[in-house]
């Protein structure tokens, strides 16, 4: 349902995404992992149209989308959960949820909150501003993504700032969305819980897709220090690149 063909994204002559080709299948759960700076978030942003492709193509459900705007891609059915969600002045969670769902009907918004589960009802009229904690704003981000009823949902590091007790419910939520709504799910994460939940793990290093398959097959590579982009690690216990 999503096909990347010979995809490049370059900045100042450096290929951040370096000739990537891959086809995502409908209804599958993908986890994208790899060292810091390997190009995971950049790839996610290319799919959403946040970054423009330098060359290559992205087709979604058979339609070439690489020249479409963020808005057009959203309307095609792609939703995106930002790693560092925007904060606003004067916009509440209710406002964002209404925009995402296309309705301000109270009953429908409450039903959405129940579907997401991890957001308390008391959140609804909170301003989405700098006063929210990192965890709270990530839950709001997740809820607005699910409220889009997307065909393809992209989550960039959804567990950032989330407490340990919420990570498993979050994984279960994304799996449930995948199963019940047939959502093709792409999660960019270093977290083992998301890697374990994935049908397919994709590993990126230096802008290239270096592995696709199950987690078991990825483990030797995840443990291999040679994938460290920064070449900082000098031993098994030294994780200078924080991968």
């Amino acid at each position: 349902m999503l096909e990347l063909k010979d995809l490049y994204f370059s900045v100042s002559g450096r290929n951040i995404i370096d000739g990537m080709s891959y086809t995502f299948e409908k209804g599958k759960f993908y986890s994208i992992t790899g060292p810091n700076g390997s190009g995971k978030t950049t790839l996610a942003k290319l799919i959403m149209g946040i970054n423009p492709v330098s060359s290559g193509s992205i087709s979604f459900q058979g339609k070439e989308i690489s020249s479409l705007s963020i808005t057009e891609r959203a309307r095609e059915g792609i939703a995106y959960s930002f790693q560092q969600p925007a904060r606003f002045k004067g916009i509440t969670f209710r406002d964002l949820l209404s925009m995402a769902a296309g309705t301000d009907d109270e009953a429908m918004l409450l039903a959405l909150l129940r579907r997401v589960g991890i957001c308390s009802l008391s959140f609804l009229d909170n301003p989405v501003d700098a006063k929210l904690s990192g965890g709270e704003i990530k839950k709001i981000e997740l809820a607005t993504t699910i409220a889009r009823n997307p065909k393809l949902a992209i989550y960039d590091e959804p567990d950032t700032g989330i407490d340990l007790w919420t990570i498993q419910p979050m994984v279960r939520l994304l799996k449930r969305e995948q199963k019940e709504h047939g959502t093709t799910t792409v999660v960019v994460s270093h977290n083992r819980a998301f890697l374990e939940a994935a049908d397919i793990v994709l590993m990126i290093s230096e802008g290239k897709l270096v592995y696709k398959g199950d987690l078991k097959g990825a483990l030797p590579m995840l443990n291999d220090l040679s994938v460290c982009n920064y070449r900082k690690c000098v031993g098994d216990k030294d994780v200078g690149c924080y991968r």
Partner: protein
Amino acid sequence: MLDAIDKDLLKTVADLEGLPKGAFNIRKNGKLLKREVSANINIESNADGSGIVVTIKPGTINESVHIPVILSQAGLYDVVYNNFIIGEGSDVTIIAGCGIHCGTLEPEGHAGIHEFRVGKGAKVKYVEKHYASGPGRGRRTLNPTTKVFLEAGATAEMELTQIGGVDEANRTNEATLGPDSLLLITERVLTEGNQKAVSANTIILAGAGSRANMISRSVIKGDSEQDFYATMEALAPCFGHIECDAIIMDNGRNDTVPSLKARHPDAALTHEASIGKIASDQLMKLMSLGLTYDEAVNRIIQGFLK
């Protein structure tokens, strides 16, 4: 009595569909149009006929008074002096606002000078909206002044809004706070085209335990200009905060000058100020929810000025 233009202006500046309930005073083109008083709220013209005195009895709770001004007479510059005496222990809402409808090339304007004396322990919420419209190209001027005196334990919450169409505005807000009193001011101003607005604010925290928070939200579109000056002077142990944010679009220009003056060692004064375009992460978030770029801009500004 109220024509279609009057009704539209009243709806915009005072959320009124026709005449309000309770006490009110509607002024049209420099003259009294209609007035009602209530058991606890008296309104009378002042001695020289240049405005009104609104007196609220001590202990008046959950009552409101509307005092809108509408202007549609070419060439008129209406100046009005209004005094509000808010009795001890009362809790009331005052809804003001001025709407100008300009239909000619001649200028029209209004200056409302409002003085509030808020008694001990009383609470007042003051809502003021300024708006101008009409097909005429005459210059529309609105120059409001508010002066607030808070007695011990009094609270004033002021929402001051200029929502569009005003070519020139010189806005002045002054306040003196007694012991343990609280002042919250939120001012929202939108300018576009070649409009100019200046907001000058002086808040004196005179009483021990007094607190003030001034929030300014400015949106500056087109070639318009806005200047914001706020001085907070602390004469006693107190807390004061100024928060001023401006969104600049197109070729808008803005000066923001917060000033804090501590004249007491136990004064705590803070300010935060920001001027800039709409943040790209905000635009991208709303576009990722299916809004177009223009819809996202409008929604962000709407929220910012809400």
